[in-house]
């Protein structure tokens, strides 16, 4: 891949170089004939018509949401899980820039890209759910509901999306060969990282704080005045785990781009991450019990919801926590990867427990998402993966660009 744009380069040369991976159009299109793309195309063929129905006929035409269950899969999974799983960006950026843990440098850019795209597609998902998505900028420019936790979430997600874009800009400018702008935007790194951590702390916890207003609807085992802290801590665990999961997938899918990496060194970094993840998960595990004790909800443990609670806390918090400790102890990146997938599932389970599975626990009937809600969610995830792949194949995300070595 050539990296500088020659002054006499024509537009088509630029297109071929930057967008078509240096191939002629016909050849490039031929490379797209893969089983993965076939599946992705199939998903989009279902998802896009549903998108059309959603925005022309309304929420009732596509979802099982109703007045008792105003929030469903799109908020519970696309927004709550999406934001938690995109926490890797701020975790890695602060590890590298603030804590100077240089060994994580190669993981930072993919994490920031995942973070940015994660948030971007959270907003896309939110637009499906909002009654009037075109009024999304209202809390910024038209009317200020300052007593609302949602107001904080809206502002902070918008600001953080901007910050993550800035953090990712160096990669874009390296791709485009804009050295001066890149140099300029690099100067913002520390400030952007600090601001990113502040924003993440606040909106990760605010997503939990949203449910503080539903003390009779969220089940007593999951409702806690500690819920902001629980959401924040678990988001860090989710973020670190996603970094491991991502690295695992990247080494399978983009192995050409990471072939220069020493597999043993990668494994070492994974083990290092699992040490941090183990500590974070253990802290989260303790906080879960402190929350229970604080609200004196012990009696609820002996109900069927209590059993489900233990499945989450023992099976999907303590379980992966121990796996992480073992991975660190016996130096096994394999176990670390298992623990990472396990943690991700656990955090997803937690968010769904709070927002869907135990929400309205006193209601005689349950909300079950419609197949179209699932289809939209799958479509959004697919769109996210395709965008991620598109950028990773073109920009220096998984490797360090030879013309831009790491600076101090």
């Amino acid at each position, binding site marked *: *891949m050539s990296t500088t744009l020659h002054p006499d380069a024509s537009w088509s040369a630029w297109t071929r170089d930057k967008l078509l991976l240096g191939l002629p159009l016909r050849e490039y299109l031929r490379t797209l004939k893969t089983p993965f793309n076939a599946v992705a195309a199939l998903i989009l063929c279902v998802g896009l018509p549903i998108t059309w129905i959603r925005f022309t006929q309304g929420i009732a035409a596509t979802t099982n949401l109703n007045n008792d269950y105003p929030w469903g899969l799109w908020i519970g999974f696309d927004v709550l899980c999406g934001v938690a799983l995109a926490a890797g960006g701020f975790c890695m950026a602060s590890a590298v820039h603030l804590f100077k843990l240089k060994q994580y440098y190669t993981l930072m850019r993919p994490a920031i890209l995942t973070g940015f795209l994660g948030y971007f597609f959270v907003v896309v998902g939110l637009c499906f759910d909002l009654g009037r998505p075109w009024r999304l900028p209202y809390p910024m420019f038209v009317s200020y509901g300052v007593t609302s936790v949602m107001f904080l979430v809206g502002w902070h997600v918008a600001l953080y999306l901007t910050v993550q874009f800035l953090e990712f800009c160096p990669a874009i400018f390296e791709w485009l060969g804009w050295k001066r702008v890149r140099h300029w935007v690099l100067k913002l790194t520390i400030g952007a990282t600090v601001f990113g951590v502040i924003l993440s702390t606040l909106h990760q916890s605010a997503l939990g704080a949203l449910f503080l207003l539903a003390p009779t609807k969220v089940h007593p085992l999951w409702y806690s005045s500690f819920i902001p802290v629980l959401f924040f801590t678990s988001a860090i665990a989710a973020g670190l785990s996603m970094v491991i999961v991502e690295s695992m997938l990247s080494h399978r899918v983009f192995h050409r781009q990471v072939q220069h990496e020493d597999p043993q060194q990668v494994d070492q970094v994974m083990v290092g991450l699992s040490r941090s993840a183990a500590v974070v998960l253990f802290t989260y595990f303790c906080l879960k019990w402190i929350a229970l004790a604080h609200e004196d909800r012990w009696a609820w443990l002996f109900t069927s919801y209590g059993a489900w609670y233990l499945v989450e806390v023992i099976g999907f918090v303590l379980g992966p926590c121990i796996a992480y400790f073992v991975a660190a102890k016996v130096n096994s990146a394999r176990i670390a990867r298992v623990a990472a997938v396990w943690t991700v599932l656990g955090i997803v389970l937690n968010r769904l427990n709070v927002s869907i599975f135990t929400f309205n626990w006193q209601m005689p009937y349950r909300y079950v998402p419609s197949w179209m809600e699932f289809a939209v969610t799958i479509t959004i995830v697919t769109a996210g993966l395709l965008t991620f792949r598109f950028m990773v194949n073109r920009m220096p995300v998984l490797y360090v660009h030879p013309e831009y070595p790491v600076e101090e």
Partner: protein
Amino acid sequence: MAVSRRGFLKAACATGVVGVGATAARPAEAAQVKRPWMGMLTDLSLCVGCRKCEYACNKANALSDDALETYDDKSVFEQTRRTDADRFTVVNRFDREGQPPVFVKRQCMHCIEPACASACLVAAFKKSDEGPVIYDESLCIGCRYCMVACPFGMPAFEYSKPFTPRVTKCSMCIERLRDGEQPACACVCPEEAITFGPREELLTLAHDKIREHPDRYVDHVYGETEAGGTNWMYISPVPFGDLGFPTDIGTKPYPELTKGFLSSVPLVLTLWPMLLMGAYAFNNARGPELAGAPVNTHEEGGQ
């Protein structure tokens, strides 16, 4: 006073210091001093389930053109209904063994400190000076957090409208109130089961009724303290828990539930930069050679 506060709040959010407003915005008490808040008292011992209030409500809010006779249909009582996008009030029947059934009219309770208003990120809900909680559809983005927050489950949403979906709920006929009229349901009730008046007077009336007829009422004015108190209140011959009223919502105003979190926001905004920059300075001073093993693949890369 109000203007300067708004100015301050706008400045606060412009700089990202959101949440500071939570402690400043207590509209409730200030407005109450100005004039007596209006409210409603429903006496469930008097309601006969004629559903004329539903008819009047639907007419007043242009929800339905159905003739009055259609409301004689008693089959609707087979199921317990809830408020909906096209009905802001519903009457439900609760059968009792050996005694006449109790009919319960439900609608927005018009909380003194409304959960919906504290939930709304665009301030589309407001406690009006007259007492009703009112909704401004021109601001609403349709996030439905108000519905998640409402302890009484009263707001509904126009899910089937693709372009202009609104949150719907009883406004206590605020327009009629401002014209000096009573809410439509209170006007039409043939049994005088719904009384309109200043909240304080209604509260006195409710307690007087209970004191004078302890045999007819349970000793509880629902809405006196629920969720910090509501402008719509009830007295009943049977415990409210048996009539579908939520009894686990406590007496704390709902905005209090998020106040602690919101007041921690400015703390994070001021303390985090100090701690994080401190960590940065500390680790920077340690020197790169001490901070973890450097990865020697940096100079390679590319394809």
